[in-house]
């Protein structure tokens, strides 16, 4: 076997793409040929190097849930206005497929004939059978718990005044309605969906407002953090940050999200609220670092002076 062939196929060997017989031949050759053995070793070292980088590079791991959710939300908004290609345009633009389908025409005609015949027999039987179902009492069917994939949007959220009853209208293929208390799993699931995915700001605001009452729940807190970081509406972000306030001290994810809002949010109201919330944890290393950056060069005079005041209250670090 020629060394040239071996060298061209070493890469396939390393990726497990060689057929069994070719792999056997390559292994036999490498055992005898020092040059090709060195080549195989070099290829393996190169893969080890890439694997080392792969383990450390965040871009090579799965995208973050926040990025995925933000992408889905953006796509959902775009799909609202997108239109699928019409049946006629498909015919007009794909003549090659007409020809391809003509090959199957005899089979298709026979299949249609058989289906038509069976359909006719079935219909005759149905007509001749005595109807008994009409006499049955009309029992209500239970509303199935919606799965996230089947929900296409949420149109309204209403809490009945003075009660803990919430009414949510949501769309699957047609609009449906679910009712229950905030402790109801179905209601919670719909609220979490609405907070992340809805294009209607009012609905997102209502869902975040209700979820704020359940901010002790980890899943709810994640949804509130998501809303704080990604929602386009400052009112929704303000509501989310308010609901997260009690957890800045104990939950580092919340603290990080509040710090990100303090540094990056475009709305000064949200930033000032973030600054107020981090006051009890201002001695924390990450918080101190952010305060120093704000005190040095923040565009807002108020935030700059508040950050300086907070830093001045802290003991000096040697």
């Amino acid at each position, binding site marked *: 076997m020629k060394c040239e062939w071996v060298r*061209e196929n070493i*890469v*396939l060997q390393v*990726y497990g*793409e060689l057929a069994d017989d070719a792999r056997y031949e390559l292994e036999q050759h490498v055992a005898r040929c020092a040059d090709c053995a060195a080549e195989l070793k*070099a*290829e393996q*070292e*190169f893969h080890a*190097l*890439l694997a*080392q*980088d*792969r383990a*450390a*590079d965040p*871009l*090579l791991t*799965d*995208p973050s849930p926040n*990025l*995925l959710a*933000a*992408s*889905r939300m*953006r*796509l*959902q908004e*775009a*799909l609202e206005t*997108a*239109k*699928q*290609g019409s*049946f006629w345009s*498909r015919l007009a*633009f*794909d003549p090659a*497929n007409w020809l*391809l389908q003509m090959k199957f025409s005899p089979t298709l005609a026979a299949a249609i004939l058989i289906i038509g015949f069976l359909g006719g027999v079935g219909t005759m039987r149905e007509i001749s059978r005595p109807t008994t179902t009409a006499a049955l009492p009309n029992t209500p069917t239970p509303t199935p718990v919606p799965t996230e*994939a*089947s*929900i*296409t949007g949420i149109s309204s959220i209403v809490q009945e005044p003075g009660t803990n009853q919430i009414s949510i209208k949501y769309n*699957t*293929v047609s609009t449906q309605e679910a009712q229950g208390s905030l402790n109801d799993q179905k209601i919670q699931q719909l609220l979490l969906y609405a907070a992340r995915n809805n294009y209607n700001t009012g609905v997102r605001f209502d869902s975040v407002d209700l979820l704020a009452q359940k901010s002790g729940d980890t899943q709810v807190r994640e949804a509130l953090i998501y809303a704080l970081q990604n929602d386009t509406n400052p009112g929704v972000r303000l509501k989310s940050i308010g609901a997260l306030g009690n957890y800045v001290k104990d939950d580092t994810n919340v603290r990080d999200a509040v710090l990100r809002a303090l540094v990056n949010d475009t709305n000064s109201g949200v930033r000032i609220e973030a600054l107020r919330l981090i006051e009890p944890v201002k001695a924390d290393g990450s918080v101190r*670092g952010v305060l120093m950056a704000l005190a040095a060069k923040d565009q807002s005079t108020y935030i700059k002076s508040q950050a300086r005041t907070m830093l001045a209250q802290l003991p000096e670090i040697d």
Partner: protein
Amino acid sequence: MLIREAQRGNRAAFEELVRHYDQAVLRLALHLTGTEQDAQDVYQDAFLKAYKNIGNFRFECSFYTWIYRIVTNLCLDHLRKRNVRKEDAPVAKDASGGEYDLLDQVADVRAGANPERDLLRRQLGARIAGALEKLTPRERMVFELKHYHGLKLRTVGEILKTTEETAKNTLFRATQKLRGALADMR
């Protein structure tokens, strides 16, 4: 079944299809474009294109292959455009003459406990990224799908509308170039 439903215009069915594939699509776009913003744009364009053209899907290949074909075409366009405007990128040259992105050198405020190891990791990452940038868009795509996504070369060929043999040759060229560019790192 979902595909048939989506072809009939059922948006919920299409969105369920999206959820089956979108994580892999976003990962591919993120790695090839290098920024979350560009990756989101590719993701958005790919699924909108799929939605508009799903009626033309004839089950001649798997839906997975079809959707990947759309994404890879968009990524290839992106890579070609980026190659054209590369001169504007904030790049510098390292000791061996290889270019790397200056933005990759900005210190991470949340760096690990071992700064020396972290620096070496960043240097390695920058060198590999620089070497990948030197590949042609098609070599980069074949390498990406094979090395980072673990697809079979036959599938890579189907996605890129070429033969398995051509995919093999492209992979060979890509690894040779990368090995050459990173020879001093081993």
